[in-house]
């Protein structure tokens, strides 16, 4: 494995894992705060148990997200010094603000976890809520930094020099809003579905049914906000990509020839050599409409761009298709649930509905990872779109493949132990968290 590929693989892996940890860390606190709020309103001890159970999950995932984020802040320099040397001062603004947000999150989590019965109950609730708000803020800020790589702004690039740097302009680049919005919505969708799936499984297994049903309903609520928000925010994101990075859009759709009234491509196998796509379903004129609200608008094809600036077409295209596919499925599940909720109450406790959510547990995360693959692979060969190539940014140090193996091992073991721990939390629900269960241990009430 050559060093460049190894560095990219390591970065992809680190981001891929960090995204999961941080999205759960961003959204779980809101679920927790919602359950907590229900407890404060209703005084139902089940909600209190649920809040505590979720807060342990938040703590574990926050710690994992924090270390994987720390790793990334080092890896940026360890793997891409050529990039950081120039980009640091330009796109660093969101990172410095993110430091504040993350710090607040760490403090708030301290207040929340250790603050039961110690503080005013609403101050305590607010601290939990603040964990979510600051987590969300740091997520948005990091995405703003990434958006700058897609839509470089706030500097002039003259003769290889980065001049007239304006970090504020760089932060509020054209891509930050569409990307951050889509990311936030997707995080809610993914986490909502994942949490709902886990609780659905436990209801099917007939364990602590009331407890898990309450949890399931809250999680589904968040999942639906995400699932229905995703296509709307996705539309904004796609229009923004079409405007800023037409070549990425062309790769997403494996759209080779420039044409008016371009068709929206579903599935298919792109052939980069021949410049065509086989076996695809094409919906006439829809791509043109999606990117510019005009059925006959012209959409630039890949062949209009220099060959050495093409991103990997197949990966970008398949990733985009996967994202859309799972997105659509989640919307369908959402529609069925809403229909049941308003018109067919009896469906809500049916096993088939719960099983649907169980199967959908990973869908949000698959879509999220696929979406990030589109964003990142679709930007290649550039690290700063149109300014610096990824290959010019890589570290001169040889032997990066060993670093890649090493980090792979770390991430895999982190994930395994995380799954192991969360399983154990779930197993302990009857004893630690569900006050209506006969096994519930009074001694734990205070912990």
């Amino acid at each position: 494995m050559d060093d460049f590929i190894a560095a990219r693989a390591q970065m992809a892996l680190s981001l891929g894992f960090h995204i999961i940890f941080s999205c759960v860390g961003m959204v779980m606190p809101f679920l927790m705060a919602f359950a907590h709020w229900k407890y404060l309103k209703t005084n139902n001890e089940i909600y209190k148990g649920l809040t505590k159970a979720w807060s342990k999950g938040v703590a574990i995932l926050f710690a994992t997200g924090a270390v994987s984020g720390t790793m990334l802040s080092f890896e940026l320099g360890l793997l891409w010094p050529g990039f950081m040397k120039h980009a640091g001062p330009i796109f660093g603004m969101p990172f410095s603000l993110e430091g504040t947000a993350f710090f607040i999150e760490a403090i708030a989590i301290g207040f929340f976890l250790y603050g039961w019965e110690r503080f005013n109950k609403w101050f305590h609730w607010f601290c939990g809520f603040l964990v979510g708000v600051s987590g969300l803020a740091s997520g948005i800020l990091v995405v703003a930094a990434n958006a700058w790589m897609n839509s470089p702004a706030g500097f002039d690039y003259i003769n290889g020099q980065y001049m007239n740097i304006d970090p504020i302009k760089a932060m509020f680049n054209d891509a930050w809003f569409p990307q951050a919005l889509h990311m936030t919505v997707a995080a809610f969708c993914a986490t909502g579905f994942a949490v709902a799936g886990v609780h659905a499984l436990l209801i099917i297994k007939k364990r602590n049914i009331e407890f898990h049903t309450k949890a399931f309903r809250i999680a589904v609520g968040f999942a639906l906000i995400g699932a229905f928000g995703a296509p709307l925010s996705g539309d904004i994101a796609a229009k923004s990509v079409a405007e800023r990075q037409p070549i990425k859009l062309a790769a997403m759709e494996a759209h080779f020839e420039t044409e008016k009234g371009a068709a929206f491509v579903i599935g298919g196998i792109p052939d980069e050599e021949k410049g065509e796509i086989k076996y695809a379903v094409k919906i006439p004129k829809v791509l043109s409409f999606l990117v510019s609200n005009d059925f006959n608008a012209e959409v630039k094809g890949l062949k209009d761009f220099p060959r050495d600036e093409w991103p990997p077409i197949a990966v970008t295209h398949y990733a985009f298709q996967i994202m859309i596919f799972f997105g659509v499925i989640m919307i369908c599940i959402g529609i069925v649930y809403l229909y049941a909720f308003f018109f067919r109450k009896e469906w809500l406790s049916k096993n088939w509905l719960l099983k649907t959510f169980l199967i959908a547990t990973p869908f949000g995360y698959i879509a999220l990872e696929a979406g990030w693959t589109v964003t990142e692979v679709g930007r290649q060969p550039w690290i700063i779109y149109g300014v610096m190539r990824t290959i010019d940014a890589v570290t001169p140090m040889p032997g990066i493949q060993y670093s890649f193996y090493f980090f792979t091992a770390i991430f895999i073991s982190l994930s395994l132990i995380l799954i192991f721990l969360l399983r154990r939390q779930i197993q302990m629900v009857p004893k630690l968290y569900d006050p209506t269960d006969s096994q519930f241990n009074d001694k734990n009430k205070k912990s």
Partner: protein
Amino acid sequence: MIYIVIGFLWLSICLYIILGGADFGAGIVELFTNKKARHKTKEIMYESIAPVWEANHMWLIIAIVILFVGFPEIYTTMSTYLHIPLVLMLLGIIARGTAFTFRHYDAVKDNWQVLYTQIFYYASLLTPFFLGLIAAATVSHSINPDATGFLDLYIFSWLNWFGVSVGLFTVALCAYLASIFSLRETRDKADLVLMIRKSKQTMIFVVITGVLVFFTAYISDIPLLMWIFSKPLGIMAIAFATIALLLILRAMNRQKLLPVRALAGFQMVMILVAATYQHNPDIILLGNGQHLSLLTHMAPPKTIAALGWALMLGSLFILPFLFYLMASFSKQRK
């Protein structure tokens, strides 16, 4: 504005060493405690760091962000030539942070605790060791970008006797801080006597490794003595640190615990002043004779201004909140 940014950089490194250091030290002290007293020590150590430990490690992130936004060349030079020790330090941070969380939040307490604890111990040892090693490498002229060959560029840039001894010294400082820090967390006389004994042991370790640092500096031709003792501020810092040490000993013997924490913190500040002031504003002394300076290798003024404002604004939010957290928990315990 640049001085504000440098001030924050220095402050965050300083706080990371004091607070994060006490955290690491907790693991080290536990590791070097015999089985009989270990459980007790663990409890005391845990009480003192649990609510704030997440926050303590934020200072490192702040320092890293300040470096890469404000002083990109310094950040990239370090991350290129000190790649390997940085990865090892990172491993320590990851392993320690997660093991600590896992050992505390795992719903079931069984044999897995042994594994978490072992990881926690050795990672607590590893991280400050490499932190010290990295700090030593920046000032010992061992990073040479003009060198050729993998070993000279990426191994001997950090692997040398001076680095190892600074690493050990950092480990000793962390253990010392943790044991001093935990004095006020003790519940009864027996605990207190135990922790005072620990503090004295770690103090001896600090002195021994400190001497080792000067010795290895001498044999490696690093003018450490001249750096520290050629300017009045350096001499003053060392003198203050020594006086603080004597005061701590005295306070401990009388079991007056109120001032010991502050004095130990003050000591660390003084050691850091002595270590960094002399070649200020240079931060990396390269093997080819070049120096990377905080003042000449900084980001453009607009970036520095934005960074300075972000830091000031951030601390306006963070500091009161953090102090309230620390204060309310130390009050709760009484």
